[in-house]
């Protein structure tokens, strides 16, 4: 055990590990909070579709020679999020078939473009890293960490200040609209935040595993708690602790970071489900 702690102490001295341990939990926090609203609105798979759109748009950005691929992938993902999540009559994309078409189409075109316009000599490796986030969280720049911190702080403050409004929009949108709340604007804001969090969360768990970051903390919290406030708090805690535990286990055991974080979230969800079941 002392050897393990000594190893951990030495690894924690490296700045890239410190950056991962700061940025990872922050992104997981934002994802968990947004995941609660997506799960409650039965839009859990939206995260998967948006992450595929982000993957495709990153490939397009690479093909067009963008130095910073986020400059293209972020606006495109936001546009798709608004189109998917806006529940007004003017919603551009509806239905599960449309969702599937967007998701698969973006993934396929993205992979095609990465092969036709490779950004490096190791296309398979680039694709694998983007899809599963094996070590991307361990290769962050200081600006990446600041961006994650700013975004997660903004999401946390947003949920803290407007918890009741979000509750209204999630559970009683018609009542909220009748009471004068600009539901469309709030939904657009939630869609934009979801898209931004998903694009950033790709660095932590990869494209294919983002849904886990959104869903498992939320579902686990809902199994154990009844009030909206308690669910938000519990989901946040699970998200943060799951990311921390996943990153630490990954660097100690030499496992891929993304899937280890998801495994930690699954474990937490199971524990909460068990605890909620025992409570009854």
């Amino acid at each position, binding site marked *: *055990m002392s*050897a*393990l702690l*000594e*190893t951990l102490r*030495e*690894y924690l*001295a*490296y*700045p*890239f*590990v410190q950056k991962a341990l700061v940025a990872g939990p922050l992104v997981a926090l934002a994802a968990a909070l947004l995941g609660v609203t997506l799960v409650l609105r039965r839009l859990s798979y939206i995260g998967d579709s948006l992450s595929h759109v982000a993957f495709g748009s990153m490939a397009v950005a690479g093909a067009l020679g963008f130095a910073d691929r986020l400059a293209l992938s972020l606006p495109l993902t936001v546009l798709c999020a608004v189109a998917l999540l806006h529940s007004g009559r003017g919603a551009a994309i509806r239905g599960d078939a449309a969702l599937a078409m967007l998701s698969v189409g973006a993934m396929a075109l993205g992979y095609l473009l990465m092969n036709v316009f490779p950004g490096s000599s*190791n296309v*398979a*490796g*680039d694709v*694998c*890293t983007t899809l*599963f986030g*094996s*070590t991307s969280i*361990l*290769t962050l*720049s200081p600006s990446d960490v600041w961006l994650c911190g700013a975004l997660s702080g903004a999401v946390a403050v947003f949920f803290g200040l407007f918890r009741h409004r979000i509750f209204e929009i999630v559970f009683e949108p018609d009542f909220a609209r009748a009471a004068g709340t600009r539901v469309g604007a709030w939904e657009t804001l939630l869609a934009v935040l979801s898209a931004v969090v998903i694009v950033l969360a790709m660095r932590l768990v990869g494209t294919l595993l983002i849904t886990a970051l959104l869903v498992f903390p939320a579902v686990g919290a809902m199994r*154990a*708690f009844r009030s909206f406030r308690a669910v938000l708090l*519990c989901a946040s805690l699970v998200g943060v602790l799951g990311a921390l*535990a996943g990153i630490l*286990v*990954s*660097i*100690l*055991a*030499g*496992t*891929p*970071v993304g899937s280890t974080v998801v495994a930690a979230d699954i*474990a*937490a969800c199971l*524990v*909460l489900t*068990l*605890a*909620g079941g*025992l*409570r009854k």
Partner: protein
Amino acid sequence: MKHHPLPLAIGLAVAGGILLALPLATRHPRATRPSIAAPGPAAVAATGGAEASAPAGKPEIDLTHSNRTMAYSLLIDILLDPLAYRGRTIRMAGLYATAAPEGETKRRHACFISDAGACCAQGLEFAPLGRLVHPDDFPPPGSRIQVEGILDTYEEDGRPYAYVRDAVITHPSTR
């Protein structure tokens, strides 16, 4: 009797964590204890190089004693911030690759290591110690080698790139 779920959840989580930690705690010390003597790049920058403090024969950065996730990530960090690691001794093991880029007279040599998922591989260029002649003095490309030397940088197109200078190559078949 109703029980609050949070204490139960915490208790289950602690129990689960202990169960998960046991296999890690009982791993072979060689696999879990990296031979990384210095605390990190910041200390190297402050002291202006750690060659004088490193014990002879023991590299400051030993990727052979780190797991794949850490070794790969550390190598990426070296490549992204080469100036922070300049002057440190390094030992790494991986697959040998060589190429003679078009338009260049000098042949380049590299040692590649892969990440935990074995889908990504990253190489670090090295310049061998002494006058070695390719291909007679080098192992076949793709063979497993161990490289030990001093991290240094060279500039190309205005950017610094990391490489291992005075590299001593060990190939299992030549031991």
